[in-house]
């Protein structure tokens, strides 16, 4: 009797545990499929794939550097815009706003995260691009055109547009996690600072200082999201295979080249080169995300709800 009961429990636990173990299977499958698919390209180009700048389906010469460059620059630009705004908003929500209002604004910002990326793309393409083309970019060219960053013609479509759209998309990540981390820092920190005669702003500075690892984690997590973002970027970056220092020029990213050309790729080597880009993108985001999760876990002392919100 006793033995039978243990078995039933054991079977049940094994079934649920099996479902949990499937997660490893899924990740393994992603690794397996992307590796298997890129074998052809890896054999042909080796490490030169990462530094090559040619992308010519006709002569079958493929190099990923312009796309790696595009991904890094658009993501960096997005962070440059989103980090100060996101942290400022998080500090406002956690430290300054009253609880109720803070909760409402957080709710709105979470909704921002629920909007599908294709919608950001449509907006960036039809609204932001003409706006940049007629107002912002001519001004940048006229006043800052002496910098190589702002040289060229105002297309509206390009790296600048991609960076702005990406920044809008990653701000919710930065805000919601930084806010949680700030709320998790002990009240006594601020009270101690105030008791020592610090101003309110200085007391907030002390709290932000204590939350720094978690905020850094939030930023890296947002970076991971920006690196892999596909549809919005595909619509607004212009998709040209070139490396240009100017933010006004069109470019392409690793994800946008896959989205654009995968169904058009005719030869096995062409497909393989695109899959290798997916593999590189996968590895980069895994490393970035792994690092971010560890930071957030450490900063929140393993408090599960917060780590899950990330």
């Amino acid at each position: 009797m006793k033995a039978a009961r243990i078995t039933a429990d054991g079977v049940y636990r094994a079934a649920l545990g099996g479902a949990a173990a499937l997660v490893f299977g899924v990740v393994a499958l992603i690794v397996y499929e992307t590796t298997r698919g890129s074998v052809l390209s890896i054999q042909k180009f080796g490490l030169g794939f990462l530094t090559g700048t040619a992308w010519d389906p006709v002569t079958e010469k493929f190099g990923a550097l312009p796309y790696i460059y595009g991904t890094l620059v658009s993501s960096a630009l997005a962070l440059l815009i989103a980090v100060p705004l996101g942290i400022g908003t998080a500090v406002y929500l956690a430290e300054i706003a009253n609880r109720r209002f803070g909760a409402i604004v957080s709710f709105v910002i979470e909704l921002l995260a629920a909007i599908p990326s294709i919608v950001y793309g449509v907006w960036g393409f039809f609204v932001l691009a003409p706006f940049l083309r007629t107002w912002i970019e001519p001004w940048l060219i006229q006043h800052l055109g002496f910098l190589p960053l702002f040289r060229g013609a105002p297309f509206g479509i390009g790296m600048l547009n991609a960076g702005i759209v990406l920044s809008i998309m990653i701000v919710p990540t930065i805000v919601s996690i930084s806010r949680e981390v700030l709320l998790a820092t002990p009240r006594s920190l601020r009270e101690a600072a105030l008791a020592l005669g610090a101003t309110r702003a200085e007391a907030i500075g002390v709290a932000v200082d204590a939350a720094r690892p978690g905020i850094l984690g939030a930023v890296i997590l947002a970076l991971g999201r920006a690196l892999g973002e596909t549809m919005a970027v595909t619509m607004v970056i212009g998709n040209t295979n070139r490396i240009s220092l100017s933010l006004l020029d069109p470019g392409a990213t690793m994800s946008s080249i896959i989205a654009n050309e995968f169904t058009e790729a005719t030869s096995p080597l062409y497909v393989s080169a695109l899959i290798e880009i997916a593999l590189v993108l996968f590895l980069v985001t895994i490393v970035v995300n792994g690092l971010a999760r560890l930071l957030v876990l450490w900063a929140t002392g393993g408090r599960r709800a917060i780590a899950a919100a990330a």
Partner: protein
Amino acid sequence: MVIAGCYAAGIIVVLPLAFILGHLIAKGLPALSLSFFVDLPKPVGEPGGGMANAIVGTLILVGLGALIAVPVGVGAGVYLSEWGRSRFASLVRYTTDLLSGVPSIVVGVAAYGLVVMPMGGFSAIAGGVALSILMLPTIIRSTEEVVRLVPQSYREAALALGAPRWKVIQQVVIPAARAGIVTASMLAVARAAGETAPLLFTALGNRFWSTALNKPIASLPVQVFDYARAPYDEWNRQAWTGALVLVLMVTGISAVLRITVRRVAR
């Protein structure tokens, strides 16, 4: 000074949402009519037409994805909640979080190798598989959270009555958390409905009516993408309307669920 800066940041962050929603309504609403929901796309040059095939296609794809992801995800989530202290469980948790960070386009490439290549062509099934992988992490982690909320005394009471562990979980814990599990799953499913990238070369898209699971199938996000890039004003207008419908679908469900989840959690 610092405080004013934070205040300004908060305003700047909320502004884009207002702009995006404003433009969606202004540009999407005019073409929104009953025919958008019941008609098929018309050829270029002919006015009117709708995205009925894409709306149905999205429902089929999301349904397929949920069919795969919900049982697995709920099972794994319950496991993490009930036996969550082992090293195995923390490893599952960490891997799940990593999986949620994998770019959706990479998931699409994996599904291409996994389903499209062996089947010899693009299909609704391939799209469903890709979406299920994207749903999985959210379902697992939120199921874990809601099942954990079931009071410990329920489990103790059932165990004290002599029920074996599996009966306690299956007949007491899961029913008590049912509302939460359903909302958690729906949230993941709604999120997946807006995904475009993983469908581009799995489900592909279809200009015509198709509900066959082994054939390419239309989906709302992909149709919006194609229509937005097309050089025809009429299609661009429909892309806006499609985007509006998509946002209403996804955020509508998310907003309602978030509010009910908060209620339940209290």
